């Protein structure tokens, strides 16, 4: 994993990008912090914040020409925040006389400041603070320059005097009535380590570096109005501050140009949109300045602009209270840990890899690929916690084993000839399809493992339907069937090996079948095929339905309203979005689009195998989505239904609706257990083989044990939570009975048996009642006990 590249991506995240008010302010006043202090009613702290950014804040704060206000994004939603008025009030309510500080020895060097105006006194005060011996040369008999222009209007004489006296008090030497001319400059440069020229106006132009304010290779720095070429007070403060940094570095023999980006006013990358912001008018002051209450009200109008586009839509980032920049830094750290704990593992495995963050991000950062690459790296380095994805990977292994996997061509004409007689043929489009059998597999129906597990009863009907409709339209192309898993769990788990094997297997089937188009009914399959098997042409089952006709259903128009939950794996597949909506409309339902749909859809919580890594996280995704939808939900991904179907939330798979079985059917609102899903797939294979191809499968007898299990709902719930299957429980009990390897509780007549199956040791507590066995509890652990 290229961590440097990753960190670069993190640095592009604009979550920490300042709002336009701060970026446009030449001294970068932290407006959000300022208004936050006001909202708390803490004017003293607010003043401290001002004072830390602006020397002589008591004066400058009042006369600042506030370029921030013209940029404030609130201007389009009621009016800009009156920052200048707030600053005046902060000075009024929050100013307190500075504490007396010890005078530092001025040993760092000698600086001459020519001109005691705004920029000059700023440079002098800042360099004095840093330990320089500063001498001001002022041509008039007082300091302050343009500050006096505001006397009587905004500033009172006493305050100006009081503030300016501070300059003398701290030990800065001031020479009044000294006019310095161009010809005098070399002498000053000889006499001082550096000279700052802030005279307001200067006849001779000097070649100034506008990043450092230094003149050529001279110890001369120029700022204030000479540089600004405008009367802005705050720009003079800014150039003074920046020149002081340069002088300090110059005398200290440090690079004066390094890390000087984004000083002064600049353009923020943040493009905060006020489209959904309710307009609120500025607070009108009732006297000369805002009262404290008025300040608080005005401060509350501040939008505190910050890019939260991804986090506001992502339950995962919300749960970990993290933004991409910080997330990436944590991944970087996690990847570099050699000895110690990988604290970010859980977080990395709690992302659904749904891709919504990238859709939201103004600069196109997406965590999906980053998380995916990180998981692959964790697996490659042996640092992926083995317990996290094991159950899902075992399930995938099952789906690609002989227990479920199946590849068949369409039953041949010869094979089906016994059905070809009137009137059967007249009523069965399927049989007519078989009659037209060409032997060339043009399509391969690939329903996927999860749909086959949760909606197994529909698969045979769908197959027959699409054989009938496709053959009617494309007579020379047969439709085969392929049961299996596309490898999505391995992809989510970062298991490249498992993914490569699966992809190779699918590709070889495709080639053996003479490269048919795959008909996909699962959104994860769609995205996996697009990513790993781009050479295979695919079409969704929903497009086939939309194109060639729906199964015969009793359409009753005027049915209720549905919200469509698009599957995140197909967020860019507009053909699927369109065909689903067409089908739903044809069936007579009304659609109300959710705010987050199609390319902006949210994940149901199943993506990225999050439910295995962090159940609470999966739940927060589910709740977020359910909360968004006021009506019944319609989904077209079996996993979405599994996640979103809840006690009070009716969720229908499109197949439930298509086959007209949705009306208040309670069963449709319950999903099969993990054990049932396994058995459904086994049974589906056997049923299809028998029904479609007339093949009897030698099934391992489901009841090969000499006992029958009774499992209560409570215990089933525990099994679901702990990922324990009925098949495993049977093995454990059988083993314990055969070997009498078990504990016994004479008080309750319960047995407790354990058995290690692969990496997990399972424990089952049960009671024998003849051949019937009540399962009372199950649990497991991965730690291995060495029994000697």
């Amino acid at each position, binding site marked *: 994993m290229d961590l440097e590249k990753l960190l670069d991506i993190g640095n592009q995240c604009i979550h920490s990008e300042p709002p336009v008010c701060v970026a446009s302010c030449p001294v970068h006043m932290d407006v959000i912090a300022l208004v936050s202090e006001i909202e708390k009613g803490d004017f003293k702290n607010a003043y401290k914040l001002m004072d830390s950014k602006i020397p002589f804040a008591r004066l400058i704060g009042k006369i600042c020409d506030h370029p921030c206000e013209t940029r404030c994004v609130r201007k389009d939603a009621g009016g800009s925040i009156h920052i200048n008025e707030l600053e005046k009030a902060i000075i009024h309510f929050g100013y307190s006389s500075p504490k007396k500080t010890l005078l530092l020895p001025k040993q760092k060097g000698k600086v001459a400041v020519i001109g005691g105006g705004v920029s000059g006194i700023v440079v002098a005060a800042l360099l004095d603070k840093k330990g320089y011996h500063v001498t001001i040369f002022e041509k008039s008999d007082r300091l302050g320059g343009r500050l006096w222009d505001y006397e009587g209007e905004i500033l009172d004489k006493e305050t100006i005097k009081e503030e300016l006296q501070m300059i003398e008090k701290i030990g800065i030497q001031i020479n009044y009535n000294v006019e310095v001319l161009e010809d005098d400059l070399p002498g000053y440069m000889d006499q001082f380590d550096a000279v700052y020229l802030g005279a307001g106006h200067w006849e001779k132009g000097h070649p100034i570096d506008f990043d450092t304010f230094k003149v050529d290779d001279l110890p001369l720095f120029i700022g204030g109005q000479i540089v600004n070429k405008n009367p802005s007070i705050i720009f003079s403060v800014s150039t003074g501050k920046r020149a002081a940094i340069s002088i300090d570095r110059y005398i200290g023999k440090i690079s004066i140009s390094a890390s000087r980006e984004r000083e002064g006013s600049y353009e923020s990358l943040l493009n905060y949109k006020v489209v959904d912001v309710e307009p609120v008018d500025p607070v009108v002051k009732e006297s000369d300045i805002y009262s404290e209450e008025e300040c608080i009200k005005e401060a509350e109008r501040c939008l505190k602009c910050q890019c939260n586009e991804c986090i506001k839509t992502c339950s995962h980032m919300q749960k970990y209270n993290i933004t991409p920049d910080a997330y990436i830094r944590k991944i970087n750290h996690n990847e570099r840990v050699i000895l110690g704990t990988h604290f970010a593992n859980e977080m990395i495995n709690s992302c659904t890899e749904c891709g919504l963050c990238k859709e939201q991000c103004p600069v196109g950062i997406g965590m999906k690929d980053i998380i995916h690459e990180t998981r692959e790296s964790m697996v490659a380095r042996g640092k992926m916690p083995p317990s996290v994805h094991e159950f899902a990977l075992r399930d995938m292994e099952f789906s690609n084993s002989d227990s479920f996997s199946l590849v068949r061509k369409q039953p041949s004409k010869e094979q089906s000839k016994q059905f070809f007689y009137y009137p059967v043929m007249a009523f069965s489009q399927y049989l007519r399809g078989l009659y037209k059998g060409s032997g060339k597999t043009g399509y391969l129906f690939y329903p996927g493992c999860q749909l086959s597990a949760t909606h197994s009863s529909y698969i045979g009907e769908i197959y027959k339907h699409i054989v009938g409709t496709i053959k009617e339209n494309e007579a020379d192309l047969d439709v085969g069937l392929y049961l299996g898993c596309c490898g999505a769990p391995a992809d989510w788990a970062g298991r490249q090996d498992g993914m490569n094997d699966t992809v190779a297997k699918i590709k070889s089937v495709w080639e053996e079948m003479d490269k048919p188009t795959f008909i996909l009914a699962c959104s994860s399959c769609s995205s996996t095929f697009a990513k790993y098997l781009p050479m295979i042409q695919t079409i969704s089952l929903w497009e086939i339905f939309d194109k060639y006709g729906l199964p015969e259903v009793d359409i009753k128009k005027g049915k209720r309203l549905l919200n469509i939950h698009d599957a995140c794996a197909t967020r860019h597949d507009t053909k699927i979005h369109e065909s689903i909506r067409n089908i739903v409309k044809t069936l007579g339902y009304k659609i109300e689009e959710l705010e987050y749909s199609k390319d902006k859809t949210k994940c149901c919580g199943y993506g990225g195998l999050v439910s295995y890594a962090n159940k609470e996280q999966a739940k927060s995704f589910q709740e977020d989505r359910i909360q968004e939808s006021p009506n019944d939900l319609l989904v077209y991904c079996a996993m979405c239904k599994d996640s979103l179907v809840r006690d009070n939330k009716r969720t229908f798979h499109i197949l439930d609706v298509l086959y007209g079985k949705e009306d208040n059917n309670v069963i449709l609102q319950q999903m099969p257990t993990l054990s049932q899903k396994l058995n459904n797939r086994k049974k589906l294979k056997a049923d299809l083989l028998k029904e479609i191809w007339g093949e009897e499968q030698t099934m391992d007898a489901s009841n090969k044990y000499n006992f029958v299990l009774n499992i209560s709902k409570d215990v089933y719930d525990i099994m679901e939570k702990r990922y324990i299957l009925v098949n495993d429980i049977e093995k454990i009990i059988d083993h314990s009975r055969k070997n009498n390897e078990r504990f016994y509780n004479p008080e309750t007549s319960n047995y*407790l048996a354990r058995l290690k199956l692969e990496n997990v040791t399972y424990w089952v507590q049960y009671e024998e009642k003849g051949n019937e066995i009540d399962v009372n509890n199950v649990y497991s*652990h991965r730690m291995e006990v060495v029994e*000697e």
Partner: protein
Amino acid sequence: MNGASENKVPWICAKCQKELVEEKVKVRYLDGNFEVELLKCPQCNHVFISEDLALGKMLEVEKGLEDK
């Protein structure tokens, strides 16, 4: 991680009909090897792990080792 708090459980070894005794037992997971006091059958050495232990301390240690 130890089973000391569980030194009295109602379980006996079904095969040997013996009460369980507390003894040091080796357990391992990933790179971790420990010796802990657990209840076991004194005759056949069949080790007892309670639900509380499996889903409590044991799980905590497993997770800790997995994140190492």
